[in-house]
C-alpha cells in the first residue's frame, strides 16, 4: 500500500512539475504577444506622425511649415530627463518643424525588427545588424566618402561602394594615460610627452619636483597591466596593424613593432624603482582612484572609461575633478601621434522617409551645432573640433579607426592569442605582462626584456602557423 502511495505521489509530483513548466511557457508566450502588440502600437504611431508630415506643405529653405521629424534613439535617459527635447528646441525654431523622439532601451533588436517594415522613423541610429552591403536598401546616401571624410571622423564606418550612409554621433578614445594635471604642472611640465624618452623624462621631473608617485603600476591587479595592450594600436598609427601582422606573418615582438614599443616603455618605467610605488605587490586600486584625484599619484595607464570613475571619486573626496586629464600614448610614428578611436552609433536617414532634406539638416545640426557629443564627454564627429575638457590633449592627435579583419582572418587573432597562451588582454599569473613586470622589478634590464619577447614570438609564431596552416 505504502509503496503504491509513494509511487502515486511521485507521479503527482512529476505531473505538477510538468504543469508548472507548461504554465511558465504559457507565461512566456503571453509576454511575447504583449510586447508584439506594443510594437504594433509604436508603428501605428509612426503612421500617424508620417501622415502629419504629408499633410503639411513643404517649403524651401529654412521653413518646413511645422513638419514632424521622427527620430529613433537609444538614449532613453536623455528623453526621460527632458534634456534632449530642450536642446532640440533650437533646431525646431530654426527650421519651423517638430522633432519627435522615440526611445528604445533595447535599441538594436527592437529597431532591427521595425526595419522589416517601411516605418522606422525618419532619422535613426543605424543598427549594426544591417550588413554594410545592404545599407543602400534601407538608408539614404549622405555623400561620397571623399566629401564626408573631409568633414567628419569615422566616415568609413557605414559606407559601401564609396557612398556614405551614416554619420557617427560621436566617439571615444581607445587607449591613453590618465594623469593629474596639477601634479604634472607642479613638476614644471608644460608640453605633454610625444615620445618614450620624453615620457620617462616627465616622470623623472615629477619624481624630482613633487612628492607624488610618478607612475602607479597597480601590479597586484593584472587587468591594470592589460590596459597597456590598449595602447598598441594607437602606437602603431596603422589602422590595419593587427591584420598586417597576421597576413604578413610578422613577429608580434619584432623590434620596430608597436607591441614591442608599448611594452618596452612599460618595462623601462617599471625598471626604475624611483618612478613607481614602493611595493607593487600590494597595490590598492580603490586607493589609487582617490590618490590620482588628490595628485599623490601622477600617472596611470588606463582606458578612457577610468576617467569618469576618477572624476567621481575626486568629487566625493573634495578634490577638483577637472584635474584628471587624459593623454595620448606617448609614442610617435614619424613625428605624428596617433590615437585609435571608436565611433558610437551612426545616424542615417530612412530611405522611405518623406522628410529627407529635414533629416539631413537634423544630422548636420546634431553633429555640428548641437554640442551634444561634447557635453557628454565624447569625441566630436566634426574633424578638428574642440575635445571635451579631459581630452584636450588629443586635439593635435591623428584619430583613426582600426579596420575590421578580412574575412579569412576573422577571429584568428583571438584564437592564436588564446591557444598560444600569450594572452595580450588576459590575466593569468604566468602571462608575459606579469613576467615582464617581475623581470623589471628584479632589474634584469634590456636582456630580460629581450628574453621574454623572444619567447613570446616563438610561442605566437608556432601557434599562428598551425592555425593559419
Amino acid at each position, binding site marked *: *500500500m*505504502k*509503496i503504491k502511495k509513494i509511487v502515486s505521489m511521485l507521479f503527482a509530483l512529476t505531473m505538477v512539475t510538468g504543469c508548472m513548466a507548461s504554465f511558465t511557457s504559457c507565461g512566456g508566450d503571453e509576454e511575447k504577444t504583449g510586447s508584439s502588440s506594443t510594437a504594433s502600437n509604436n508603428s501605428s504611431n509612426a503612421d500617424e506622425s508620417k501622415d502629419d508630415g504629408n499633410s503639411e506643405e513643404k517649403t524651401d529653405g529654412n521653413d518646413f511649415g511645422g513638419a514632424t521629424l521622427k527620430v529613433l534613439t537609444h538614449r532613453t535617459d536623455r528623453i526621460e530627463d527632458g534634456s534632449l527635447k530642450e536642446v532640440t528646441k533650437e533646431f525646431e525654431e530654426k527650421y519651423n518643424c517638430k522633432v519627435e523622439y522615440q526611445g528604445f532601451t533595447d535599441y538594436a533588436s527592437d529597431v532591427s525588427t521595425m526595419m522589416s517594415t517601411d516605418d522606422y522613423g525618419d532619422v535613426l541610429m543605424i543598427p549594426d545588424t544591417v550588413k554594410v552591403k545592404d545599407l543602400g536598401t534601407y538608408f539614404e546616401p549622405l555623400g561620397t566618402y571623399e566629401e564626408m571624410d573631409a568633414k567628419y571622423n569615422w566616415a568609413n564606418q557605414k559606407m559601401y561602394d564609396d557612398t556614405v550612409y551614416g554619420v557617427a554621433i560621436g566617439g571615444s578614445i581607445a587607449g591613453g594615460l590618465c594623469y593629474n594635471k596639477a601634479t604634472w604642472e607642479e613638476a614644471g611640465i608644460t608640453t605633454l610627452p610625444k615620445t618614450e624618452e620624453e615620457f620617462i623624462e616627465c616622470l623623472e621631473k615629477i619624481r624630482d619636483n613633487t*612628492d*607624488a*608617485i610618478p607612475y*602607479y603600476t597597480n*601590479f*597586484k591587479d*593584472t587587468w591594470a597591466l592589460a590596459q597597456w595592450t590598449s595602447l598598441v594600436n594607437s602606437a602603431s598609427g596603422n589602422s590595419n596593424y593587427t591584420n598586417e601582422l597576421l597576413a604578413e606573418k610578422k613577429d608580434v615582438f619584432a623590434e620596430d613593432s608597436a607591441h614591442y614599443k608599448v611594452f618596452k616603455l612599460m618595462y623601462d618605467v617599471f625598471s626604475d624603482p624611483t618612478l613607481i*610605488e*614602493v*611595493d607593487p*605587490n*600590494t*597595490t*590598492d586600486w580603490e*586607493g*589609487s582612484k582617490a*590618490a590620482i584625484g588628490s595628485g*599623490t*599619484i601622477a600617472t596611470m595607464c588606463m582606458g578612457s572609461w577610468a576617467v569618469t570613475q576618477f572624476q567621481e571619486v575626486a568629487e566625493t573626496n573634495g578634490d577638483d575633478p577637472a584635474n584628471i586629464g587624459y593623454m595620448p600614448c606617448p609614442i610617435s610614428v614619424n613625428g605624428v601621434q596617433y590615437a585609435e578611436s571608436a565611433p558610437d552609433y551612426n545616424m542615417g536617414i530612412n530611405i522611405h522617409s518623406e522628410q529627407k532634406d529635414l533629416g539631413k539638416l537634423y544630422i548636420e545640426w546634431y553633429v555640428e551645432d548641437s554640442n551634444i557629443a561634447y557635453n557628454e564627454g565624447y569625441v566630436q564627429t566634426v574633424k578638428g573640433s574642440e575635445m571635451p575638457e579631459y581630452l584636450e590633449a588629443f586635439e593635435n592627435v591623428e584619430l583613426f579607426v582600426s579596420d575590421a579583419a578580412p574575412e579569412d582572418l576573422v577571429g584568428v587573432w583571438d584564437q592564436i592569442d*588564446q*591557444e598560444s*597562451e600569450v*594572452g595580450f588582454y*588576459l*590575466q*593569468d*599569473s*604566468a602571462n608575459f605582462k*606579469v613576467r615582464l*613586470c*617581475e623581470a623589471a*622589478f*628584479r632589474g634584469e634590464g634590456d636582456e630580460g626584456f629581450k628574453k621574454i619577447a623572444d619567447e613570446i614570438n616563438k610561442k605566437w609564431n608556432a601557434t599562428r602557423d598551425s592555425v593559419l596552416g
Partner: protein
Amino acid sequence: MDDLLTVSGKKSKKTAKQWIQSYDGQKAITSIVFLLIPVALLILFTFVPAANMVVYSFQKRSQLGTDIEWVGLDNYKTIFSDSSYLMTFKNSIYYLIGSFIQQALALLVASVLCSRLRCKNFFKGVLFFPYLMNGVAVSLIFLNFFKNGDGVVSPQGTLNSILSVFGVEPYTWLGAETANFCLVFVSLWRYIGFDILMYIGAIQSINTDVYEAAELDGANSWQRFRYIVFPSIKSIIALQCILAVNGAISVFETPYIITGGKNGTTTFVIKTIETAFTYDKIGLASAMAMVLLSITIVVTIIQKTVFKEET
C-alpha cells in the same frame, strides 16, 4: 546480521504489504528515504562531474562545450612534456618543508599545553581560532600584514610598522625573494591549531599512570617526552606528515588571494584554474586535475598500507 537474514528468509512468503508493515520493512524504507536526497546530491554534484572530468581529459573542448575534439592522450603528453605545467609543483616543496616545521611546532606546543599550565583552555582556543577563520579573510589580513606601504596610497603594513620600532628598514615582503616564505608562514599560522588539537588528543590518551611512574623514577620532562609521549603518538605524527604531502600539492587560496600567483608563487591548482578559465582549455585542465587526483590517490594508498597494521 545473520539472525536478521534468517528471520527474513523464513518469512519470505510474506506479501510485500506485510513486509513493509514489519519492523524491517519500516527500517529499510526510512533509511532509503533519508538517504535518497544526500546520495542524489552526492551523485549529481560529485560523481557525475568527476566522471565527466575523466572524459573531458581526453578531449579538446571549450567552456561552453562547443567544438569538441577527441585528442586521446595529447593533453597528458602536453602536461608531462611542457615544463611550465609540472614546474609549478616546485612551489609545493616550500609548503612541504613548511608543514614539517609546522608538525614540530605543533608537537612542542601540544606537549606544553598538556603540562600543568594555567588558562590551558584559553590558549587552546587562541591557537585553534585561526583554523576556524575563513581562508579569504586570513589572506586579506596577511596582505595588510606584509604590505610595504608608501604612506601615500596605502598605510604601512603591520610587520614593517612593528619592525620599525626596532629600527629595521621597511622591506617588501611579498617581493620575489620572500613571497613564498611569507605564504608558507600564512598557511602554517592557519593550520597549526588543528595539528595542536590532534596532538593534544593523542597525548591525553596516554595513561597517566605511566607518567607518574616515570616521575617517581626521576625522569625529566625531555625524557618523558622522548620515551613515553613520542613512542605513543608516533603513528599520529606519521599520519599527519602524509596528510601534509596532500596539503602541499593542493595549495590554492592563500597564494591566489595574496599574490595572485605572481612573483613565482603559482601552484599547480592555480595553473589548472587559469588553464581552464583564462585560456578556455577545459580538456587540458581536466587532465591536470586528473594528474592531481592520481597523486592524491597514490599518497592515500601509501598511507592506508603503512598504517594498516597499527590501526
